[in-house]
């Protein structure tokens, strides 16, 4: 088990290192970082001094080492647009994105899994076919279009929910601002969370359905039925449990991509999160922010992956044994 975790950690470190390499290459070679810091009339020797102080004359490998060391201390340099440390900019906007992502993820799981189970069990039912059709539409509609549709319906036409912003937020310890504690904050969260979660929800629904259909064909389900267990015990005990094991992996990875997909949702709803910051960076060629965002997202993916692996081992007894042996 320990060996397994160690191997996983090593793999994760390698992934992070290669992402850091890309981030560093962007940072170092796409546009001269010095040019962003000086104006046209800065004297040449002052420019040279800045180059030196930034360490840009050192060998590339040394520079990369420095970049990685700084990244480990969450130092990603200064934003070209805002002239502020990138880390501070990201940290300020992280709560908005993370809350949005978390609520969307919950929404997609809580709705997607039951819908998948239902459509698998009632394969030919009218409602199941309807769910299937709706899910296909959900996969085909671009996120931003869904967002616009929801805004038009619930904000413009019905006026029930706000169409932009986070509503009122409350400051918590550690500088974390939350919109989950005020009515306006919660109301503001509904539309973006649904928009962001809808795609993942349909994906999870289709995945659960496919997996469940597969499980229902297995021998142990046939044997469970042959033993006269109630339909409920067979479907929601045996079949569901086996269905959810592989679903954990993919759902976990989906949660990771929710954070990246938040870029679109945040733009539609003018949500003050990291996604909007990243988009602005892309538009204005603010490389330090782009690089930092890339590293941060991959870091999140690595953590989620690790968590999923451990969860997997906790759920599946077969894996526990192979891990013990490893």
């Amino acid at each position, binding site marked *: 088990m320990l060996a397994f975790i160690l191997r996983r950690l090593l793999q994760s470190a390698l992934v992070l290192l290669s992402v850091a390499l890309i981030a560093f290459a962007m940072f170092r070679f796409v546009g001269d970082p010095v040019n962003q810091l000086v104006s046209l009339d800065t004297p040449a020797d002052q420019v040279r001094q800045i180059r030196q102080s930034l360490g840009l004359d050192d060998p590339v490998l040394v520079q990369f080492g420095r970049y990685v060391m700084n990244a480990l201390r969450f130092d990603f340099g200064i934003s070209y647009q805002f002239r502020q440390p990138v880390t501070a900019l990201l940290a300020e906007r992280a709560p908005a994105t993370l809350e949005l992502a978390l609520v969307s993820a919950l929404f997609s799981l809580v709705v997607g899994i039951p819908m998948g189970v239902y459509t698998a069990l009632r394969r030919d039912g009218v409602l199941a076919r309807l769910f299937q059709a709706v899910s296909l539409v959900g996969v085909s509609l671009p996120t931003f279009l869904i967002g616009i549709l929801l805004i038009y319906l619930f904000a413009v036409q019905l006026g029930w929910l706000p169409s932009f912003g986070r509503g009122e937020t409350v400051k918590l310890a550690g500088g974390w601002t939350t919109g989950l504690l005020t009515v306006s904050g919660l109301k503001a969260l509904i539309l973006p969370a649904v928009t962001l979660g809808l795609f993942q929800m349909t994906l999870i629904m289709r995945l659960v359905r496919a997996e469940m259909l597969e499980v229902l064909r*297995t*021998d*142990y*389900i*046939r*044997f*469970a*039925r*042959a*033993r*006269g*267990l*109630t*339909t409920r*015990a067979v479907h929601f*005990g*045996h079949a569901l*449990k*086996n269905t959810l*094991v592989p679903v954990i992996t993919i759902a976990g990875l989906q949660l990771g991509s929710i954070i990246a997909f938040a870029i679109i949702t945040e733009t539609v709803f003018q949500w003050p999160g990291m996604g909007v910051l990243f988009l602005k960076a892309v538009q204005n060629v603010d490389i330090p922010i782009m690089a930092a965002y890339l590293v941060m997202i991959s870091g999140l993916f690595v953590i989620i992956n690790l968590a999923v692996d451990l969860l997997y081992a906790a*759920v*599946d*007894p*077969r894996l526990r*044994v192979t891990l013990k042996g490893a």
Partner: protein
Amino acid sequence: MTEPVLSVRDLTVEFVTRRGTLRAIDSVSFDIAPGEVLGVVGESGAGKSLTGTAVIGLLDPPGRIAGGEIRLSGRRIDDLPADEMRRIRGKRIGMVFQDPLTSLNPLYRVGDQLVETIMTHLPVGRDEARRRAIDLLAEVGIPAPERRIDGWPHEFSGGMRQRVVIALALCAEPDLVIADEPTTALDVSVQAQIIALLKRLCRERGTAVMLITHDMGVIAETADRVAVMYAGRIVEIGPVREVVKHPRHPYAQGLMGSIPALEESRERLQQIEGSMPRLAAIPKGCAFNPRCPHAFARCMVEKPVLLESGASRVACWLHDGTGLGEETAA
């Protein structure tokens, strides 16, 4: 004569597909007396397993019972509502599948699967169910059952798992066990043990067995009577000694001729030329006619019915007794 545990009359199973309706089981009839072991043999695809599946009511669509009836101790069960049939499965009819490696849910402890089954069918509490589960495991020959009951299926070997499967099939004391190729997936060394175990447990309890297999050796050793199936039909049924020693149907003769251990005098094992027809292309008349060395005109047009012949019954016009069989086409 005592009432049979299982009585199947003219059972017909069909699969409705886009290309038409396929008849997988064609008017099959047989009885199993209490405590009796009926062997069902035939090539794969002959409809043996499907017969067992139909009896226990687990046919999956597009398969369906298209005709005939199934009676359990005189009560008709093929038309029962789903939930009533569910109560019969496991309680009155137990089932053992072919592959013990896939029969047990890998995510449930062995004991939980036993306790769950016992509590579904018997009015006992969890503690009592667990006690019974341990007794059962001991009875099927699992060493240290009070410890192994909390093990996971993957911690058991194939043979041990099949013992657990047998315990699961017998845990509500059914009147009939359908064992579908119970040893095919096992090592040769443990096959005999599992068959002996199954036989002993069923004899002790007076449980009847429908033993589906293609292994004639197992049949000869275990069964009281044997039914030979071919292309969805029973071609011969009778006491095991009769069918093995004096098979009457040409197919059964070929089948028995292919058993090495039972025939000492023959220099060469027989084999039957050709292969069983696909469901979509079962010939008119006797399904065996393209491969039968004795086929004559009547076999091509008229489907043979089961005819008395000595202690057996056989579906072959050679045994019609009208003498028509003599004019065998050259």
